[in-house]
């Protein structure tokens, strides 16, 4: 039953987008093929899929671990951005000397950046009881503004013809590619490794048990002596660190420079991925591939059928909407009351 609703949501989204294409006066079959099939038909497409799934997977596993403890990190986008910024600072500062440790330092700086950005909501939550849903989301916008300021201001490449971008990373600060001739880098392996690590953490360690207990039964966690505040810290630092790693991998494995727009909303899409994958690392692996396909197919539609890029966001929205609706309607029955205080009442 628990896996029924993501499948249902995916099917309903396909139906929804088909209707949308028809309403736009496009051939739905061609559009669907462009959206879902074309990207899978070439090695190039498949590696691009892996490339796009990497940040989604990293962010979504962190988000999911948090949600299992009832800690809602909505701001992976901001932690992703800070990871990219802090990692880039190291890469730009120490790169170029040919040292082997530069890429490692860059990656760790990215993780630290994401963690630091997530530490702020953790502090606000545990000291002042300010809910992380609000604080993490708001800090995302701060992070994007900060990135804009840096690439337009102090970090702007003096030889960049005034484009808002930083200097290029030196080769020693770049992530190695997995496949020559494609853009797939070893960040994809980090993301893949996060799947078993996340599963083991949640299922087989005491820390994971605490996380699940705090989320499933707060009173039982209090009774067992599992600290709510410690769990908030662990979850936010962990998901912040993963998002930060995703951020720096995106830069050090991609263009090798910061620009004002480094993410097409990976951190937000990862929330959908986490729920579509049922907060389970293995499920999230598949959900991240589906979401990556949407990004790729959306670009394809834009290029070959001149459709707006908003199609991607629309389908993402449909997915989440149908998923939440399916969850509610599978678990609850809607009953309409006839009297004047009519409303919806749920029967367990």
């Amino acid at each position, binding site marked *: 039953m628990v896996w029924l609703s993501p499948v249902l949501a995916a099917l309903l989204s396909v139906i929804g987008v088909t209707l949308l294409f028809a309403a736009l006066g496009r051939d739905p079959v061609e559009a669907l093929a462009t959206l879902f099939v074309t990207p899978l038909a070439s090695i190039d497409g498949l590696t691009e899929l892996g490339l796009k799934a990497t940040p989604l997977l990293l962010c979504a596993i962190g988000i999911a671990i948090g949600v299992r403890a009832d800690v809602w990190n909505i701001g992976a986008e901001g932690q992703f951005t800070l990871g990219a910024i802090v990692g880039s600072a190291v890469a730009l500062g120490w790169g170029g000397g040919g040292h082997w440790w530069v890429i490692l330092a860059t990656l760790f700086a990215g993780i630290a950046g994401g963690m630091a950005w997530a530490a702020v909501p953790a502090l606000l939550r545990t000291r002042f009881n300010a809910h992380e849903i609000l604080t993490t989301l708001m800090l995302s916008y701060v992070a994007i503004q900060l990135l804009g300021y840096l690439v337009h201001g102090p970090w702007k490449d003096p030889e960049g013809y005034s484009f808002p971008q930083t200097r290029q990373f030196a080769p020693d600060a770049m992530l190695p590619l997995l496949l020559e001739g494609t853009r797939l880098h070893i960040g994809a392996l980090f993301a893949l490794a996060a799947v078993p690590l996340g599963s083991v953490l949640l299922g087989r360690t005491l820390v994971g*048990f605490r996380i699940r207990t705090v989320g499933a039964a707060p009173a*039982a966690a209090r009774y*067992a002596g599992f600290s709510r505040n410690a769990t908030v810290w662990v979850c936010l630092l962990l998901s912040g660190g993963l998002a930060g790693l995703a951020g720096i991998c995106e830069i050090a494995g991609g263009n090798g420079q910061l620009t004002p727009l480094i993410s097409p909303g990976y951190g937000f899409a990862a929330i959908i991925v986490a729920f579509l994958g049922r907060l389970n690392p293995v499920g999230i692996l598949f959900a991240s591939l589906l979401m990556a396909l949407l990004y790729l197919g959306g670009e394809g539609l834009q290029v070959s059928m001149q459709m707006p890029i908003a199609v991607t966001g629309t389908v993402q929205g449909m997915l989440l909407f149908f998923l939440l609706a399916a969850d509610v309607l599978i678990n609850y029955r809607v009953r309409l009351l006839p009297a004047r205080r009519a409303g919806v009442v749920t*029967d367990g």
Partner: protein
Amino acid sequence: MDAPAPPPRLALAGITKSYAAVVANRDVSLAIGPGEIHALLGENGAGKSTLVKIIYGVVQPDTGAIAWEGKSVAISGPNAARALGIGMVFQHFSLFESLTVAENIALGLGARESIGELTARIEEVARRYGLAVTPSRHVHHLSVGERQRVEIVRCLLQSPRLLIMDEPTSVLTPQEAAGLFDVLRKLAREGCSILYISHKLEEIRALCERATVLRGGRVVGECDPRRASEQEMAEMMIGGALPVAHRPAPLHEGRICLIVDRLSLPADEPFGTSLAEISLTLRDGEILGIAGVAGNGQKELLAVLAGERLAPDAASVRVADVPAGRLGPAARRRLGLAFIPEERLGRGAVAEFPLSENALLTAYQHGLVRAGMIRFAAVEAYARDIIARFRVVAAGTGASGSSLSGGNMQKFIVGREVGTKPRVLLAAHPTWGVDIGAALAIRQALMDLAASGSGVLLVSEDLAEIFEIADYIAVLSGGRLSPPRRTGETTVEEVGLLMGGRMAPAVPVAALHGAVDAA
């Protein structure tokens, strides 16, 4: 022509219901006449819950027929049951914590009237039947006993013609229980039939006209409880001679394992009870019973002893000679404290976790975790051991907490806490709502633990239980604790006076503070 005898209000014939492996009910037949108070007796797992769920439409029988007032019916769900006129007060309450009493009742009724009108009706029914319920209070502030009264009022508002009561008196004082019996007798005189499930045989003898006894899913006997003896009924339920709880000879006076020294604590919620100058001493090998009606500071005292709330002063709670007032629950467990909480699911155990993980919940400090990794083999073994030693009826260590009956869940929790060999065990209402067999096993476990040299603090509303197993008895009333008396040197009447005398209406918090200041 003679008027034919009225058909029974409810007649079950040949009801059988089986789940995957277990037959919960086998060929059960039962008839309840109009205005009859009918007892349903049986141990945990005897099939009472399943039968009641079938009557209430929650589950459908595999075979068998149900007749309501002579007409064959299929009860497709609780709504259909309510439409027929069947009301039920569940053992596990279905109330939303964050809503008020009136809002909860409105949800249950389908809210066809305004909260204001409903409040007036609630107050009227509550007054008519003498059930103290305040419609505007939030449920999360209410004690178990108060919540039950809300459930009863909710049923009575629907003017039921058959009322099912599942263990209704377990949380009431003797006076309140007597009051409830008056309510039930009045209802019965008005023609409402009552199906009364309880393990307190003396109540059934006082209240019920007929009893059906279930064992292993079958009807094993019917009797008139007013004529049958308690011994006879209990043996029918158990299917053999009644085991007797055995208290080993008390040890010589042990060392002090728990001291509470002039502990005062303001209430942390609007309807909570402040604790005032509580002092007690517990020695190794001793059982100290704390009597009193819920809502007199039990919840607060247990929270501050277990470490879920911190005491203002570290020295006011000492566990094994260590000042523990400022330590959290995990640190106190390391000192040898264990705790059986009042709520089973959601606090003592996690409903959606398997039993193995529920064993881990508090026993994780006892070799079940190595280098941060859970040792699943050890956890499984520990859970299996609890299941075996306490004869927990469960589908194995993988069964989820929510799949167990209340009594079996409680046996599991008791087993888990006792199994950590604590120096001090806090037990909150450990036999509430469990049947005779489970209650005996739980009491025996507490006594065995004391005999092995641990101190046990037993907070219970069941006076008979305290008199049966405790060495000392003290009464908690209005947040104050009476000096403990040796159980052998006091009487139920004396303790009842202590409970009643200062219990009366809950002392207003402000007045209590005044009293403390003046002292």
